[in-house]
Each structure stands twice: as structure tokens, then as C-alpha cells.
């Protein structure tokens, strides 16, 4: 019972911590190498960015957590990546095709691909992310059902594809289609206060970046490590799940995954991390 009370008071503390007694703690001065391959965890911010330097969330985590990510063997997210490599070559759907049938070896065909999503999709007339690109292949090429949001295989496959871009600096091409207006919309969302706690993304991840909310060290809220292995859930956590979690924590109603609102936010937030290495599957608290 005592444990349960502590959990409840911690949840309350997230709200209180925003207003009372903020403690500052700088991101660590450390460099990340995953199996000896150097990662860019600090990059000069793109023009028009509120920060001078964009910082990976890895710099804000505890030494033990950082060490798990630095060794791909220890990283439990890699178990899912390995499992997805099997899904990659398993035929599914009425066309009798697997991903491999068209794309061949994942490490060659998907190299660098995941670092540049969301991308403009002419057919849908909106940006799509890796999850929706996978679904598009499944429905149009394989004759398979699209994945349900946050299905275990969806997260694993997304992680597999992004992992092929490990170390590659992230960027989004805003000149494609109508991307710029989606970026604008995402920016609006980022700075709009929501929920009973009346918080916007920027309140924590920009204004209070580096501060502690109770035991949690606020990062810039970068997306370069998603899907991320979160120790709290002992599982891969997708970006849209994390978006929804943050919005829920402001005690607001949260939009559907892959909705226009969250897709615009993904476009904008990905831009905010321009230049950071893809770390998927990153390990976080």
C-alpha cells in the first residue's frame, strides 16, 4: 500500500514540480558511441530554431541508462529489431510477398531511409511517417491488413527500419508538397497550451529544458531515438504514443495517433532535431 501511495504522490508531483522548486541540472558532457560508432548528440540548430544547439535526450539520462544504449548487445530494444528482421522476410497477405521480395536486404535498401521521414505522400496528400509507409506497402503491395496502432510488430518494424539509419543525421525536406504548411501547423500545436494544467510542449521542453521535474530531467523532447526502449514500460514506445502520453499528462484529451494534428507535430518536432543522429532504438528512463 505504501508503494501505491508513493506512486500517486509522484504523479501529482509532475504537476506541482512545474511551479514549485525547479532544480537545474545540465545535460552531461559525454559522447555517445554505439558499438564504437560515434553518434551526433549535439548539433548546431537549424535557422529559426529557439535553441543554439540541439541536444539528444541521451545527454539527459542517468549514466546506467546511457551505458545500456551504448552497447547494442545490452539494449533490449535490439531484441525487437532482431525479431523484426524475421518479419521482414516472412511473406504476409494475399500477394504472397514479404518486405524482402521487393526491398531485398534491409541493411542495404533501408540504409539512411528512416532518417528523413516524415515525407510528403502525393497519394494521401499529406505527410506520412515510417509507420504509415509500412502500412501503405502492406495494403497496396502485399495485400495485407495495415497494422493496428502500436501493434507489437508495427513498433518492431519501425524500429528495424530506423535502426538501419543508426548514426545518420535526421532531416526533413520541407520543400516537398505542402510540407511547410504542416510544419507551421505543428509549430502552432507545439506552442499551444492544453489541458487542465494548461501546458504546451514548449513549457517543459523549451522553457524548462534542463530542469528537474521531481526525479525527471527535462530534455529538449527530441525524437531521434524513436521507437524508444523505455525502461518504465520494458518495451518499445512509439513516437505517437509518447506524444499522446505527454498531452494526457497535461490532463487534456489527446488526438488519435497519426491524426493530422499529431502528424504535423511530428514534422515540426523532427525538424527541431535536425542534425541529431538517429539512435533508434534509444534507451530512456
Amino acid at each position: 500500500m505504501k508503494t501505491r501511495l508513493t506512486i500517486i504522490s509522484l504523479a501529482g508531483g509532475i504537476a506541482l514540480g512545474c511551479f514549485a522548486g525547479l532544480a537545474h541540472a545540465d545535460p552531461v558532457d559525454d559522447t555517445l558511441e554505439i558499438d564504437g560508432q560515434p553518434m551526433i548528440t549535439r548539433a548546431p540548430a537549424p535557422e529559426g530554431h529557439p535553441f543554439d544547439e540541439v541536444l539528444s535526450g541521451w545527454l539527459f539520462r542517468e549514466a546506467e541508462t546511457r551505458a545500456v544504449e551504448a552497447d547494442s548487445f545490452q539494449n533490449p530494444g535490439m531484441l525487437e529489431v532482431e525479431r523484426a528482421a524475421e518479419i521482414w522476410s516472412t511473406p504476409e497477405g494475399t500477394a504472397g510477398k514479404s518486405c524482402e521480395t521487393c526491398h531485398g536486404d534491409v541493411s542495404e535498401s533501408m540504409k539512411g531511409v528512416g532518417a528523413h521521414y516524415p515525407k510528403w505522400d502525393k497519394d494521401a496528400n499529406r505527410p506520412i511517417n515510417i509507420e504509415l509507409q509500412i502500412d501503405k506497402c502492406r495494403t497496396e503491395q502485399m495485400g495485407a491488413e495495415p497494422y493496428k496502432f502500436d501493434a507489437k510488430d508495427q513498433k518492431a518494424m519501425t524500429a528495424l527500419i530506423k535502426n538501419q539509419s543508426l548514426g545518420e543525421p535526421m532531416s526533413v525536406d520541407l520543400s516537398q508538397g505542402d510540407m511547410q504548411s504542416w510544419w507551421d501547423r505543428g509549430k502552432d500545436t507545439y506552442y499551444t497550451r492544453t489541458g487542465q494544467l494548461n501546458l504546451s510542449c514548449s513549457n517543459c521542453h523549451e522553457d524548462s529544458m534542463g530542469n528537474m521535474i521531481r526525479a525527471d530531467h527535462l530534455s529538449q523532447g527530441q525524437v531521434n531515438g524513436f521507437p524508444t526502449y523505455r525502461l518504465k514500460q520494458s518495451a518499445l514506445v512509439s513516437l505517437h504514443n509518447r506524444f499522446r502520453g505527454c498531452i494526457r499528462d497535461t490532463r487534456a484529451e489527446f488526438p488519435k495517433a497519426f491524426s493530422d494534428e499529431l502528424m504535423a507535430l511530428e514534422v515540426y518536432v523532427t525538424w527541431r532535431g535536425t542534425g541529431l543522429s538517429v539512435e533508434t532504438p534509444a534507451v530512456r528512463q
Partner: protein
Amino acid sequence: MSTPKPRVKLPKSAAKDEIITIKTLISHDMESGQRKDKDGNAIPRKILNTFTCEFNGQAVFSCNMEPAISANPYFEFNARVPESGTFKFSWVDDDGTVITHEQDIEVK
């Protein structure tokens, strides 16, 4: 859940009597028995309860695991290698399944 998949990392070769580091990781939910499903029914406990490592039939390391251990248990330990041979790792599931993995090492 899918079949647990073990991963083991140890050097392919070593000098005689060298102390090597062995790392093991296995995918498993480690369902503690304390959680409830959406309908409020308790989810039965299902964990890996024992881990052992043998070298040429001789015990090197073993331990019992308890429900508080998180999903995907990771072990790292050291062993002295007196001769070429085979490391055998086994994990025992609550349902009686034994997951094993073997890896050879050569003493040069």
C-alpha cells in the same frame, strides 16, 4: 508472446586460464503475477525462474530469478577458461520450458 530468444556474447577464443566476460540477454515478459488485465482479473505469474551457465558440464554460474526482475533479463559475469569447450546456458520458465543456448570457445 513469441518464443523467448536468447542472445549470448562471449569471445570466440581466449588464452588458457584467461578470465572472460560473458553477457546474456533473453526476451521474456517476466509477468510478475501482480498485475491485472482490463477486466480486473489477475494475470498469472509467468517468469523465467532459474538461469544456469555450465562449461563442459561443470557449473559456472547459476541463480534463481524472482518476480521483481524486469522484462528481458540481462546477466553479465566472468569465467575462467581452462580449456577449449562449450558454454551451455539455460533458462527455466515457470511453465517448465527450458530454453538453452550453446556456444563454443577455443583456447589458443
